[in-house]
């Protein structure tokens, strides 16, 4: 109940938006997720309570963007900075969603929420004030790349919400960066709606600092013939959860996901994905990589749900994991739930360490052990990083991953 009290004491009841009230009401019946439920049983309870310990921050504070804006055409938005955007160009338009549209859509989403599955969203929406919700409607083609930033300030809990409508026949490259400052908690919820024939290359880079926490949830609805490509990277968080829910509402859509999480020290980062095919001819190719070092814990749970209607679904899911220390641990659970019979579904999972034979080979060629390990790791990372829509000259993620820790 503490969390509810906290939100309420921060604001008097009449200052809460309608959505906040609805979500608070839902949270009241069970303020915390059920620790025995499949989605939360491995989550570190004390880390989750640290997440909730910080006081809610609704003010805007400055932060440093990790790389300069080097192309004039890139559209950069920061959630919470009161940004007003209305771009109507020859080929495309980007506009903010009206308050009514925003409220209608979020309310509809809330009606589908389940207590444990959407606890992060419920928390987010009960914390997010008007200024911290950004709704965009994107239309047209030849749209310049879009970058959207969310951040949490030190010693506070920030909640940011992003809603994006991608109109018919539109395609776009969108990079979302979540930054956590030292001793901070960020709750980020993203709602994506892809209309027919639209496509998006979506990158999510979540990068924390010392003792920062993150609850990142991503809800995607794909209409017919849409293509959703997601490249994600989560690292340097004391505690982070990345919850992805993708619904192909009428099938006939393509989803590609390449995600990676890296844990060191005593961090815990987990990824939960749920892909539902609600129509025929759906396609999914998913790979999730984890790397766990020191005393850290990396978790991946992915479920693929293929009901009877989703005939001719082609789905594959791969979980590849590197365990680099005796004290680290990895849990992975790729799961399939299938009723349709004319489908091709497969999944695979591996857990191992760096390949010793390859290391030995490189060492016989005069490469030091450290360098050889780096080379192996870089090839492991590269597959995912190359899928994130950000150029190397802007932000060299690979270099960051290999050298920073």
């Amino acid at each position, binding site marked *: 109940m503490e969390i509810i009290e906290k939100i309420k004491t921060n604001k008097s009841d009449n200052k809460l938006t309608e959505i906040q009230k609805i979500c608070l009401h839902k949270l009241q019946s069970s303020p915390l997720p059920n620790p025995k439920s499949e989605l939360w049983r491995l989550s570190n309870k004390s880390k989750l309570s640290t997440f909730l310990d910080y006081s809610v921050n609704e003010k805007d504070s400055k932060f440093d963007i990790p790389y300069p804006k080097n192309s004039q055409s890139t559209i950069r938005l920061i959630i919470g900075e009161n940004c007003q955007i209305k771009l109507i160009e020859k080929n495309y338009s980007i506009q903010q969603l009206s308050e009514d549209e925003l409220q209608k859509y979020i309310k509809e989403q809330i009606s589908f929420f389940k207590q444990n599955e959407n606890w992060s969203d419920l928390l987010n929406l009960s914390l997010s004030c008007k200024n911290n919700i950004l709704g965009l409607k994107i239309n047209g083609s030849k749209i310049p790349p879009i970058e959207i930033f969310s951040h949490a300030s030190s010693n506070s809990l920030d909640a940011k919400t992003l809603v994006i409508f991608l109109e018919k026949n539109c395609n776009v490259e969108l990079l979302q960066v979540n930054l956590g400052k030292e001793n901070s908690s960020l709750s980020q919820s993203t709602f994506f709606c892809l209309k027919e024939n639209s496509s998006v290359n979506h990158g999510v880079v979540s990068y924390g600092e010392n003792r920062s926490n993150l609850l990142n949830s991503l809800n995607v609805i794909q209409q017919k013939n849409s293509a959703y490509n997601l490249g994600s990277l989560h690292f340097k968080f004391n505690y982070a959860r990345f919850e992805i829910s993708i619904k192909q509402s009428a099938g006939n859509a393509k989803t590609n996901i390449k995600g990676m999480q890296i844990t060191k020290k005593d961090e815990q980062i987990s990824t939960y994905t749920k892909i539902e095919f609600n129509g025929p001819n759906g396609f999914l190719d998913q790979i999730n990589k984890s790397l766990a070092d020191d005393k850290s814990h990396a978790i991946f749970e992915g479920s693929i749900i293929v009901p009877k209607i989703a005939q001719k679904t082609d789905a594959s899911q791969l979980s590849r994991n590197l*365990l680099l220390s005796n004290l680290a641990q990895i849990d992975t659970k790729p799961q399939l739930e299938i009723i349709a019979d004319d489908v091709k579904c497969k999944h695979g999972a*591996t857990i191992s360490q760096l390949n010793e034979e390859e290391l030995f080979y490189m060492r016989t060629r005069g490469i030091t052990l450290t360098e050889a390990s780096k080379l192996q790791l870089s090839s492991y990372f590269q597959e995912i990083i190359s899928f994130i829509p950000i150029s190397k000259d802007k932000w060299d993620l690979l270099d960051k991953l290999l050298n920073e820790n």
Partner: protein
Amino acid sequence: MVNENLVQESVKEPYKYGFVTDIETEKIEKGLNEDIIKLISHKKEEPQFLLDFRLKAFKKWKKMKEPDWAALGYKKIDYQDIIYYSAPKQKEKISSLDEVDPKLLETFDKLGIPLTEQKKLTNVAVDAVFDSVSIATTFREELAEHGVIFCSISEAVKNHADLIEKYLGTVVPTSDNYFAALNSAVFSDGSFVYIPKGVTCPMDLSSYFRINSGDSGQFERTLIIAEESSSVSYLEGCTAPMFDTNTLHAAVVELIALDDASIKYSTVQNWYAGNEEGIGGIFNFVTKRGKCLGKRSKISWSQVETGSAITWKYPSCLLLGEESVGEFYSVALTNNLQQADTGTKMIHIGPKTKSTIVSKGISAGNSKNSYRGLVKMGTKATGSRNYSQCDSMLIGDQASANTFPYIKSQQPNSEIEHEATTCRISEDQLFYLQSRGIEFEEAVSMMVSGFCRDVFNQLPMEFAAEADKLLALKLEGSVG
């Protein structure tokens, strides 16, 4: 092209073991309480340690909740509406098989069990358990020559109490899970096998379990101990008559393998599965676990699961000994409204341990077939390896196939590989076979058999033939 109706029809096959033997049985009243447990213990003339074991388990069971995490849906079981002890009435002491009620022997003959010693040529020693009580064990003398003990667990309690006291409940503790606790409290019979040091059991051992009453549960307990450098192959078969009520079967199997020992445990489970509307059938909640205690020991589970309305079964291996090996080969076929949630657990504790999992699920009709498995590498399991393969085949668009593999590693110097696929019978292959003049139903049967080949290869010869036939029977039928 695959004709859906043909496939649907071809998986319908009546249950041929559905007869009831009209035999006088001795039953106790329904319900479960301490007095009932004491009564069971008293009837079996058990020593005090066993009664204490039962009462301790019952105490724990009362505090436990029936598990609900499995992907199964069934009517709540009323544990007070079950008879916990039912035995065929027989003469006080049986000196040879001739004295066993001929009706009983007839039943086993109908089931095709080589119970009588005339069938010595088959070279399989059988322990037959009818409802709750072991009826007869064959080939005992020949086994005794090698020092092998193969008898019912009640006999073992009387004659080898030290072994029972030492090992019972060491692999599956009384508080392990709800059904294991229930079994520990009320188990009535089962088999006991002890293979002494250095002995390779001269023949396959086999148990045949038969539930005959509609209102009594079956709670058998099997304990197999393989001493250093010994080896044994154990086969288990199960059938039951057709009743409109659901009968509970909650068994516990414990295997212990010491240094260099190997145990191969094969099951063909064909309990009554209920009718097409899902009425009746056995609720099969079984806890099977093997402990590879010794270095280089090996436990191999192979199972063919075709029966039961509900199957909840996860034969597991605890790999403690260095270089010990665990194996799990399974075929699970579900049809009509059957539900199966089955798989395995491979817990790697010792170094250089290895495990292999091959699971094949076939779902037809409106059935639900789930694989649920756990592979865990503990912190000391350096140089350990696991390989898992789970394939599902769907027949018809009403059946469901689920895969839930849990994988956990705490040891960087170990490797885990898991792969799973789901498919349906390939139309191309069916078309090819049919174009070569093979009948539709035979082609389906051939493909299912091919799909399960990896598992059948692991079954003892006699069982492999039976399993193949059983699947073919379930998939053949009214076509043509």
